[in-house]
């Protein structure tokens, strides 16, 4: 609510380019999954168009900022916008956490015949079907109610392996790494505020490095699951919730890592960001803290309990 004149924006061709790219992306993705002709080509085309549009769109925003075109009010709009975007991401994860809590609290016990709505096992057995027999309410649940006829049964889960093996437990290391990266990105922010670009670049570089290590370990964990544990997307509700939650989190870490890398490049090669004016970086660091919080939730609800 600053006084004076309002900033009136220009027309822009980027939005409709972005919408068109998005159209190619979804037609391509749908076509690829359904196996129609040219699906993959359209998908790649959409991906390339989207990347280019975003590059030029963001470049324009940065240039406007450097040219001093954006008012204090517009900067505040960006701040609000980023905060609400992160809130929408929180709600996206809430859907998957909600699914996890629901199956653990209701679906799995009921399927095992427990609780108010437990499956009437005797009735099922009288019908001559032994589908659900022997399915027990445990978590992590390895067995599936269909005894592996439609879904596969894993040999092992990613849960806490006991204190003797704790050091070989990748999620623990990932937790340490991601928590440290939240600290390093905060040190980078402090460096910037204190006017030390060197310290900013170093700490930000360290953060990006930790992010890459995290992603590497996550990939190793997935490889381990598929190659040695028999734990896949196809191994019942544990595999489903495990891979979807950690997978979407990993994807968001990847996005956050891209954001921070762009900020690093902007600082190292273009000397962007001032002591009191660096919302681009701040937005990326907010996003980074957000994926960190999601990981803590994951570590607790998916891996530990």
């Amino acid at each position, binding site marked *: *609510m600053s*006084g*004076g*004149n*309002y900033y*009136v*924006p*220009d*027309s*822009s*061709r*980027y*939005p*409709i380019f972005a*919408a*068109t790219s*998005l*159209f190619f992306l*979804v*037609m391509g993705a*749908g076509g690829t*999954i*359904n196996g129609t002709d040219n699906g993959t080509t359209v998908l790649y085309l959409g991906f390339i168009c989207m990347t280019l549009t975003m590059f030029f769109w963001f470049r324009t925003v940065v*240039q*406007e900022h450097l*040219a001093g*075109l954006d008012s204090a*009010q*517009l900067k505040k*709009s960006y701040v*609000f*916008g980023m905060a*609400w975007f992160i809130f*929408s991401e929180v*709600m*996206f994860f*809430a*859907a*998957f956490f*909600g*699914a996890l809590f*629901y*199956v653990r609290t209701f*679906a799995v016990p009921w*399927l095992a015949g427990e609780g*108010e*709505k437990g499956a009437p096992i005797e009735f099922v057995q009288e019908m001559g079907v032994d*589908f659900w027999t022997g399915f027990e309410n445990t978590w992590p*649940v390895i067995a*599936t*109610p*269909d005894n592996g006829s*439609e879904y596969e049964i894993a040999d092992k889960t990613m849960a806490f392996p006991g204190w003797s093996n704790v050091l070989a437990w990748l999620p623990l290391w990932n937790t340490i790494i991601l928590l440290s990266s939240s600290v390093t990105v905060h040190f980078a922010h402090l460096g910037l505020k204190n006017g030390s670009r060197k310290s900013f670049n170093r700490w930000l570089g360290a953060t990006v490095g930790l992010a890459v290590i995290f992603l590497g370990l996550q990939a190793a964990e997935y490889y381990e699951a598929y190659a040695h544990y028999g734990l*896949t*997307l196809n191994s*019942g*509700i544990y595999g*489903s*919730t495990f891979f*979807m939650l950690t997978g979407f989190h990993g994807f968001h870490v990847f996005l956050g890592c891209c954001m921070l890398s762009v900020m690093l490049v902007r600082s190292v090669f273009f000397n962007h960001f001032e002591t009191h004016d660096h919302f681009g970086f701040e937005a990326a660091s907010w996003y980074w803290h957000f994926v960190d919080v999601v990981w803590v939730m994951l570590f607790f609800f998916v891996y530990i309990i």
Partner: protein
Amino acid sequence: MSAVIENHHNEHDHHGPAKGLKRWFYTTNHKDIGTLYLWFSFAMFLIGGAMAMIIRAELFQPGMQIVEPEFYNQMITLHGLIMIFGGVMPAFVGLANWLVPMMIGAPDMALPRMNNLSFWILPFAFFVLLSSLFMEGGAPNFGWTFYAPLSTTYAPPSTTFFIFSVHIMGASSIMGSINVIVTIMNMRAPGMGLMKMPLFVWSWLITAYLLIAVMPVLAGAVTMMLMDIHFGTSFFNAAGGGDPVLFQHIFWFFGHPEVYIMILPAFGIVSHIIETFSRKQLFGYSSMVWAMLSIAILSFVVWAHHMFTVGMPLAAELFFMWSTMLIAVPTGVKVFNWIATMFKGSITFETPMLFACAFVVLFTLGGFSGLMLAITPADFQYHDTYFVVAHFHYVLVPGAIFSIMAAVYYWIPKWTGNMYDERLGRLHFWLSFIGVNVTFFPQHFIGLAGMPRRVPDYALQFADWNMVSTAGAFLFGFSQVFFLFIVVKTVMGGKQATDQVWEGARGLEWTVDSPAPYHTFSVPPKVS
């Protein structure tokens, strides 16, 4: 670099719109984008309406006459999806675009380029959705609520495209809502405190919050569907330890706030119109705000009243019954406030006021049938019958859609500078009013008598009222083509509107010229 900057300054100097198609493709102007949204939603309204006509034509008589049952299912699915996501929601976003900046004294939306992106995603999303009609296996056929396993195990291949179109519609809604919230929080004219905001602005602030909270949940639901169909997960399949009921929980956690997303802006619109044509200040402004806030918060804890018959524990059935009934309290506050506003007012009944009064009466009627449905034991009788169809069409057609029509008649003089033809407007109202009641009121009867929803054929005893309902539906349908004529006629010309337009109108948007200038406020107005 410097070329870019000079370019910016040049474009700042001219204040008219660009010429030709480029204006609409590249625009960042809230009025242009609002116009795009409104025309898009009108087009979708007519397409979804044509589908409704196919449905009603098939139901004119028992037995199968016009379409195949498979195609009938595709029609009911697309009718619902198009009316909700393509008709009502974009119409409200269009109104928000046009009105919120003018009402709060802002020059434009806070993030104008993203505003353009939010709109242009929609035509693509609905192209993807509608193209599924021509795909192998046909369009989605599982109803707009797309319950698993109908939408997973038994779904047609085009479901993949349906899922992606829902994803990008959601992205559009989220960006649109972020824009509305940021505009309202950051762009209000000096002196306009939160409790001085016009009610339409308040209603959209709350709606946008609901949208940001639940659209990502819908995205999560369709993502789980996609994974279940194509990548072997078992979220909604009991054989793998999941649960089809989980789908319903996630869907309705989105779906119930979605219902209020489609009615809160209507509350805002109706409050303005009743106030203007009663020539009185609105009764109970702050209680209106608090009522909307309570409705919004309660909307997050009532979702399972859509699932009473699915087999939930008794405690859940009771909880969701009581929480649902609780919503009648703030809604009652609003209805009584509207009545109290009219009380002893010097009322005139121009077209917007006619629609607003019909809204109050008929929406309340839909609310009452909602209360009946909220009673768990009674719902075991009503569930999935035409009574439910009658209920939600009463809150959506003479509720949400009447409010949109009221808004169009109320603000079109400000948008175009021309008065609409009052005689034609009233004729349109009466045709719609009669049509909507003839269509949907009998559905209460056939529903209570036991006719299930989503069937192309039915037992003989329902024949009479179905025939009446179909006659009403065609009356309502054709009167909307008449509405299109009235709108086009008004855009083309008409009596010049004054700046205030309506004698009792208050608010910043009535202080500017009619038609409103391309950039409304370049300097913030002072609000006392």
